[in-house]
């Protein structure tokens, strides 16, 4: 075991979830911290900020989104949402509120731990402020505003570049339609999802080896896109 085991705060009111997540995180090289409600969770985050938070949206004492907003006031580490599939809008709201990613219940621990790794790496990436981001053959130079594929420069329109850069900066973090539209086109266009479809399609044509099975820009159906770091 390495000296530093990342502390993961798991917030869920179901004891059964803790029952398997605890051993799973432990076995995966993390240090699980348990909280059964939002109040305890917020207190724990304030007391000793964990490296990441796994947050269930259905909590007994407070709405999960509310807990998220409160936590974001003083905590900027990765937060991964646990949600049920039928609460699509809640999920999007949570992402807009600053959550990094989400995992739908029921989930396999493998998936959760993978998302957790991406979120933690993204955080390190942000701290390191790396100027060149890679995804497979594709290289994005954020300083020179250049994009190349297998060493060959690729010509992107300014909007295409903005969109790609925004996704790349997010690491593997899911960015909602609204977040992307607001960042690239401005708040007036936050509902014009069709812009995204068109531009993502164009970028894929230029960057992906097979645009039908994308690896650079991944679609989160109904929610947004993420960068395939």
């Amino acid at each position, binding site marked *: 075991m390495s000296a530093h085991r990342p502390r993961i705060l798991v917030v869920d009111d*179901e004891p059964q979830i803790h029952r398997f997540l605890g051993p799973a995180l432990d076995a995966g090289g993390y240090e699980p911290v348990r909280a059964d409600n939002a109040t305890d969770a917020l207190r724990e985050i304030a007391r000793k900020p964990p490296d990441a938070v796994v947050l269930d949206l259905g909590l007994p004492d407070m709405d999960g989104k509310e807990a998220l907003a409160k936590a974001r006031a003083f905590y900027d580490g990765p937060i991964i949402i646990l949600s049920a599939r039928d609460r699509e809008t809640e999920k999007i709201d949570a992402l807009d509120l600053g959550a990094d990613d989400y995992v739908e219940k029921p989930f396999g621990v493998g998936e959760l731990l993978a998302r957790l790794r991406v979120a933690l790496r993204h955080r390190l990436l942000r701290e390191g402020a790396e100027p060149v981001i890679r995804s497979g053959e594709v290289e994005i130079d954020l300083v020179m505003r250049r994009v190349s594929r297998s060493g060959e420069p690729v010509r992107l329109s300014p909007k295409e570049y903005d969109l790609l850069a925004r996704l790349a900066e997010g690491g593997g973090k899911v960015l909602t339609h609204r977040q992307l539209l607001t960042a690239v086109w401005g708040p007036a266009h936050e509902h014009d999802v069709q812009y995204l479809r068109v531009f993502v399609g164009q970028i894929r044509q230029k960057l992906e080896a097979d645009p039908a099975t994308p690896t650079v820009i991944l679609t989160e159906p109904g929610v947004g896109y993420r960068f395939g770091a």
Partner: protein
Amino acid sequence: MTSAEPRRPDPEALLAEVGGSGRGRLKVFLGMAPGVGKTYAMLREARRRKAEGLDVLVGVVETHGRRETESLLRNLDVLARKPLDYKGRTLLEFDIDAALEKRPDLLLVDEYAHSNAPGSRHPKRWQDVEELLAAGIDVWTTLNVQHLESLVDVVWKITGVRQRETVPDSALARADDIELIDITPGELRQRMAEGKVYLAETAKVAAERFFKPENLTALRELALRRAAQTVDDQLMGAMKRAGVEGPWAAGERILVLVGGAPVASALVRAGRRLSDMMMDAPWIVAHVEQPNRPAPDPAAAQRLNEALKLAEQLGASTVVLTGDDIVSTVLDYSGRNNITQIVVGRSPTSRLRALFGRSLPQALLDRSAGAALHVVTETAPEPARPAPALSPLHALRQWRGYVGAFAFVALATLVSAAVDRLSNQSANLAMVYLLSVLATGIAFGLWPAVAAAALAALSYNFFFLEPRLTMYIGHAADVLTFGVFFLVALATGWLTGRVRDQARATSRRASAVTSLLQASRRLSGAAKKEDAAKGLAEQLAAASGRKAIILLPADGDIVASAGAPMLEPLSTADMAAARWAWERGEAAGRGTGTLPNAGWTFRPLQGVKARSGVAGIEAGEGADSDERFVLALLDQGAVALERAEFAAEAADAEALRRSDRLRSALLNSISHDLRTPLSTVLGSTTTLLEYGDKLAKPVRRDLLDSIREEAERLNRYVGDLLDMTRLEGGALEPRAEPTDVREVLDAAVERVSRRLGARTLERDFAGQLSLVSADAGLLEQAVANILENAVSYSGDGSRIEVAAYEDPDEVVIAIEDQGRGIPKADLERVFDKFRRLDQPTDRGKGAGLGLSIAKGFIEAMGGRIAAVSPVTATGGTRMLISLPKAVRTHAFLL
């Protein structure tokens, strides 16, 4: 009519045109007198149309035995007449229903002004025609000009004959075409001489007078003028629609003042003629009500009502003004409404009043500025309209005052005689008589008091002034005494009587206002439509002194919904009138133009947005019914009903919203309660798969345990959902068999024993227990659900007690826990589905279906279930299940 912006089509004219499409077309064959050949012309024209292939039907035609006319009827389809029994005679009348059913292209209905036999749908044939037109059937009819309502007075002046069968001018104005059948008076008299004009023997003398050449000439002029005027009107209508600038912007507005005088109806007709002359200038018929004057006598009130009704028929708008000073009230109104012409009558009463002051026309003339004044001095009585017969009760009420006056004076005479015998001071006796006058005034009002004054003066003279028992007055001083006494008595009677009448009037108005206020409060308090209807029926019954009924719409029809004093079924005829009122939005039944032979009068309840129902008042004698009060009540009732309907709609919306919330709660529950166990199962298995070799043995064991527990939990939940579905779908068929409660309880306890954890469970049902009639399987499930609930809601180390005991008819199962108990407010709802969802802290303890399933099962078996909480000072819940004992077969089995 002023047209502010010329060249723009008048929207109302366009609307009238649009409204006219779909309606049948009306053609009137207009003549100056009987015998000019209207029917003949109509039939000839109809035959031509039939030859062109039109479906022509003769609804009703009077041939009066004229051969030429009868021959024209051949080859035309003639509708059979409908026999109607009236006072032992059978009258053959036009069958409007058959005509509506046959729906010909063109229907001939002779004699527009005909009055239908009592018992017909409409009292007048022109109303039948109106209905036929509304149904989209083209109608041709015939009319003599003397039957026009506004010309009745004129015709009477010309011919000395007052027409009883009349047609409102508006009915002629509705005609799309008018064909004037014109022959010269000489020709007509020629035809009469040749016997071509039918005349009954008895009517011959009167007819001879009617058909005088000068009469015919005058009537011919009337007919020609009226036909020309209709052409004018049509031209004007066409010009208005086309937006053509025309000569109609005269800006004249006519005000007709009517009161209760007999001249009222003549005034209204004069107003109509004036309006006609001024190119259909708008005209208003107004009555001024004086709040500080005694109410008019019933005959005058009746005349006033008739005049106002006539005004509306003739196309005027009517208004009732209030003010003590008639002249200033009228001038104020006419000033504000730009009145240019005022029509006023001068009746004999106002001439009498002229002795004391100026007559109304004179006062108006003195003070009016700008408006022209028309004074109608016609003083003709109206013999054509039978005066309403006074009921014996009413006559008695009128005479009661005078009888009372007589009684008071007689009493005063007796008292005076007694006093006179004792004291012999006849001057003081006058005081006793004055007392009787005063009493009469207080008790019976103005006119009886005046009568009492006169009677008292005469009695005083006759009995007590020397020489007694004569009307002769001996002493000169007594003449003075008598004179002074008479004047004082008269003044006393006059004043007390007036004061009393005014007080009565004031209190009557006050009580009307109070009742209206009360009604308003009561109606506005009604939250439900039924309450509002019931309240309205009661108020109407109270106001009219007769039975009242409210009909409300239901499934496209109307049904009697409330009645006062009680709801009674309506006869078919009454129902027909009520439906008419509902469908047309017009009054129907007794006292109206539609189905006047019904036993009730029905009026539509017109709310702000829509018609909310129909109110009926039974015809007949009743207490003082104030028509306006009743109408005000109807208005309020309509609004109250409408409001109740809105409230019901709002409640429906709320219920829908609530059921939406329940549905989303159900979805949430299913998603949460299914997914949480699945998450655990999936999470635990993947943990074992991925990290199994890294985990310690007890951890692996625990994960496997949790997988099994959650699978069981899932199974229970699916079972609950299935049970619930069976209950709700009605698929549950419990078998009622003699069952031993103890066996069932043992089985149920066994089922939950593994979930007890650190809780203890005690059984207390030893000894003899009767068998119950129950389905053992369902009962076990119900008890297990309650036990699960008890386990979920009570802490470790607590005790759960299961007991069973016997009542005379039932076996009771009691399950008690030591949990925190149920708040009192929730005891009712504890068996509701998904109740738990309201409390997020209770999640994970089941879907909230368990208790509601238990209740469903128990009740399906004929038992009862109830919750008691708290049981002790610290809480606790006790669930009681009562089951009926099985029929006593077990005695034989033992």
